[in-house]
């Protein structure tokens, strides 16, 4: 009924210590992970070929990045990296200092020390280590009992001394019994003392001054403020922030705007990049960052970025950079929603818009060429006798010719341009199947996935026909591990390196978006699958199509790396046997290149 | 019938978009 308060400061330090540990230990672990183990910003992949490609692209990127972009990137990277004096670090430092202070206080507190030493430790009493055997315990007891036996004591000892030694003897006997006698041992293990349950006191682990008449109104006030102001404030802030954003990371108002545009979209309208940019310009995220600007302003800024002009009335490049860098998540969100309403044309246009924004190139027929650095647009457009739209076509000419076509006179500049051109990954389809792990074919109502085998190649390299690659290079392991998780093969590929994108405000990595549509109605059937791991080592190979004329006996297919993409299907195979036709689209988000767009037959057989 | 007419009438605009794109 009557609770004791912690007058002697025996227990409240432990309480505060526990609270501190609850906060500090997870925080410390996560901070250590972030500082030392987080690999998401890595430029080392453990894959020397991939690092080689990375290095080449980084060098070229650095050469062509403008000063404005460089400054913006530095500021962005600085804020992303953890600062020494960030809030987290300060909390950690102060927290651990408090812990040290409390531990020191506990050690200096005699009352705590006394109650700790009051604990019954049979091993210490017998003078043996906790791992001693029964024989050691017996011999230790025998020695001590001889020393402390009341009958063996000298008659000269005073009453106090005698009492002390007798008490000692009792303790030693108890200790011996606690370790050997069954009943006493049970008592010791259950209650911590061989005599059974000791007195237990219950109290409140808080000093009494907190509840004394003087301090208690203050404590109540603190409680009131915490419960009625501080707690609701933080919970509301957290809740509205969580509620404001969809799973894909875009604002709910932006998402509902996109859904509205998608639902009211007329099939007679042709989807263009301009249309997508117009939809983007109404994003809520932009309004939050720049409340004073209108949708028309945002649209103009994005167009300025794509056309590499500066027509907007807002001349500060930071405004444009923030808007453009936000487009990444907005476009991914729109892509997801477009797949949700099954609109293939809009999904495709979203990906094309992505490329236009990343490369700052408008969606003209010449976009593959215009994404290259140093191109003299006027000379190129008026010059070509033979219509050149693709990098592949460009590389049918000798380097000097290419310089003339692109209007590049400087040899050093031409070399850089050709480096970029030959390091843009192109995909060549080798094989695509519907696979059901453990089955030789697709059976009715099974769950197949799509397995795509392709070659990553440079536009400069000679085309290798798919037949040149033996089945052994394309087949997959059939062991149990593979059947359990057929998608594990994707994890073995290294992450994509940073892209060549000197106009995009932040450093970014290429990704491949995979869309699947039904050929019967031409509509998409599932959300996009984004691939961010792919080996680009083939880009390092010297296989210039202007020099290699024929694929002779010296051609070794094993030297080439085959890329794999696995696309899970969102629905099972049809319940009846027959053929179903699917269109698979695999597009790069960052480059204008030869993407994959092909038809696959699902042969459903018993 | 009206939807059909509207779709038919959008042909001119579509042509212009194609010309601009290509």
């Amino acid at each position, binding site marked *: 009924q009557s609770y004791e308060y912690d007058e002697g400061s025996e227990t409240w330090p432990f309480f505060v210590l526990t609270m501190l540990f609850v906060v500090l230990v997870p925080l410390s672990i996560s901070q250590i992970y972030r500082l030392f183990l987080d690999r998401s910003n890595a430029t080392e992949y453990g894959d020397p070929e991939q690092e080689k490609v990375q290095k080449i692209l980084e060098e070229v990127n650095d050469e062509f990045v403008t000063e404005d972009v460089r400054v913006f990137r530095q500021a962005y990277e600085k804020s992303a990296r953890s600062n020494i004096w960030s809030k987290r670090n300060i909390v950690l430092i102060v927290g651990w200092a408090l812990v040290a202070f409390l531990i020191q206080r506990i050690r200096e507190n005699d009352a705590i020390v006394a109650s700790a030493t009051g604990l019954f430790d049979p091993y210490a009493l017998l003078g043996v280590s906790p791992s001693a055997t029964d024989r050691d315990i017996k011999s230790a007891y025998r020695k001590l009992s001889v020393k402390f036996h009341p009958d063996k004591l000298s008659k000269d000892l005073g009453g106090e001394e005698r009492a002390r030694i007798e008490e000692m003897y009792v303790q030693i006997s108890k200790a011996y019994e606690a370790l050997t006698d069954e009943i006493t041992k049970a008592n010791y293990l259950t209650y911590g003392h061989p005599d059974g349950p000791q007195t237990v006191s219950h109290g409140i682990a808080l000093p009494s001054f907190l509840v004394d008449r003087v301090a208690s109104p203050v404590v109540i006030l603190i409680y009131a403020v915490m419960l009625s102001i501080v707690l609701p404030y933080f919970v509301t802030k957290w809740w509205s922030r969580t509620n404001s954003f969809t799973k894909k990371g875009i604002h709910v108002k932006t998402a509902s705007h996109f859904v509205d545009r998608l639902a009211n979209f007329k099939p007679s309208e042709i989807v263009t990049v301009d249309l997508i940019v117009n939809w983007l310009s109404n994003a809520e995220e932009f309004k939050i960052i720049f409340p004073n600007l209108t949708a028309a302003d945002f649209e103009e800024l994005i167009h300025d970025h794509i056309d590499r002009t500066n027509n907007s009335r807002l001349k500060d490049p930071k405004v444009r950079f923030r808007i453009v860098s936000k487009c990444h998540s907005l476009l991914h969100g729109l892509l997801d929603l477009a797949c949700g309403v099954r609109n293939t044309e809009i999904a495709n246009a979203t990906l094309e818009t992505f490329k236009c924004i990343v490369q700052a190139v408008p969606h003209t027929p010449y976009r593959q060429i215009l994404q290259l650095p140093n191109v003299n647009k006027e000379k190129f457009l008026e010059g070509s006798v033979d219509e050149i739209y*693709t990098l592949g076509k460009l590389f*049918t000419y000798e380097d000097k010719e290419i310089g003339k076509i692109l209007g590049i006179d400087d040899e050093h500049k031409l070399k850089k341009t050709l480096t970029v051109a030959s390091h843009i990954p192109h995909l060549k389809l080798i094989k695509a199947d519907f696979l059901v792990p453990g089955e030789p074919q697709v059976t009715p109502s099974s769950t197949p996935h799509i397995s795509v085998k392709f070659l990553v190649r440079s536009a400069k390299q000679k085309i290798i026909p798919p037949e040149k690659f033996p089945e052994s290079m394309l087949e997959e392991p059939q062991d149990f591990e593979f059947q359990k998780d057929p998608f594990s093969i994707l994890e073995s590929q290294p992450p994509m390196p940073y892209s060549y994108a000197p106009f995009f405000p932040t450093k970014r990595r290429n990704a491949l978006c995979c869309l699947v549509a039904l*050929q019967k109605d031409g509509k998409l059937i599932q959300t996009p699958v984004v691939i961010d791991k792919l080996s680009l080592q083939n880009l390092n190979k010297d296989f210039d199509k202007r020099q290699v004329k024929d694929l002779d006996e010296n051609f070794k297919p094993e030297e080439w790396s085959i890329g794999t993409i696995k696309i899970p299907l969102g629905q099972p195979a049809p319940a009846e046997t027959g053929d179903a036709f699917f*269109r698979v689209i695999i597009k790069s988000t960052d480059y204008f290149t*030869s993407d994959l767009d092909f038809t696959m037959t699902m042969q459903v057989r018993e | *019938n009206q939807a059909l007419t509207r779709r038919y009438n959008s042909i001119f605009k579509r042509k212009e978009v194609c010309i601009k794109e290509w």
Partner: protein
Amino acid sequence: EISYDTNSKKLSSVGEPTEGLEIALGQVNTLTTALISETNPNFTPQPHEDVSKLIKNLFDSGLKNAQQNKFPEALKNVSLAIEMAQRKRAPWEAFAIQLKELQFMLRHKIDILLVLGRYLEALQDLDMLMNTGLIQPEVLIRKTDALLKLGQLDQARIECERGLTLQPQNAKLKALLMECTRKLADFNG
């Protein structure tokens, strides 16, 4: 807010209308105008005989021109026939009949356009046919052809592959696919 003009007998909106409202008002006005000018008090969804005759005459003369290899005139007549069908038919006439008529005439118009080398217009009409649900190999063959001639090689291949999923053994589509592949190989160097 909507206002009604007793002279023209038409509805219009006060202020800036939404797209949906604009379409709805347009449809109501079209219906009203057609109803007012209808002379027969017992009108039915059956197509008007005189309008049908007019359309048929125009269309037939267009076909005759085509047979005589006078394609510009053929195009003019067939286009006129389609215009008549769009303008002169009452909006309450049976949709199924109107659709079939339009699809039939469009197919002939497309063929004439292709002969005349007017590929962009042929493509628009082909897209219209597909939008009305006519997804058939014959339509996709012509669409592939038009896209190839317009230099849209990637799109041509995609349409050709779609045609082949409908009829995997179609010889013309197979030949077109080979042509697409060949042209794309050259396009990509």
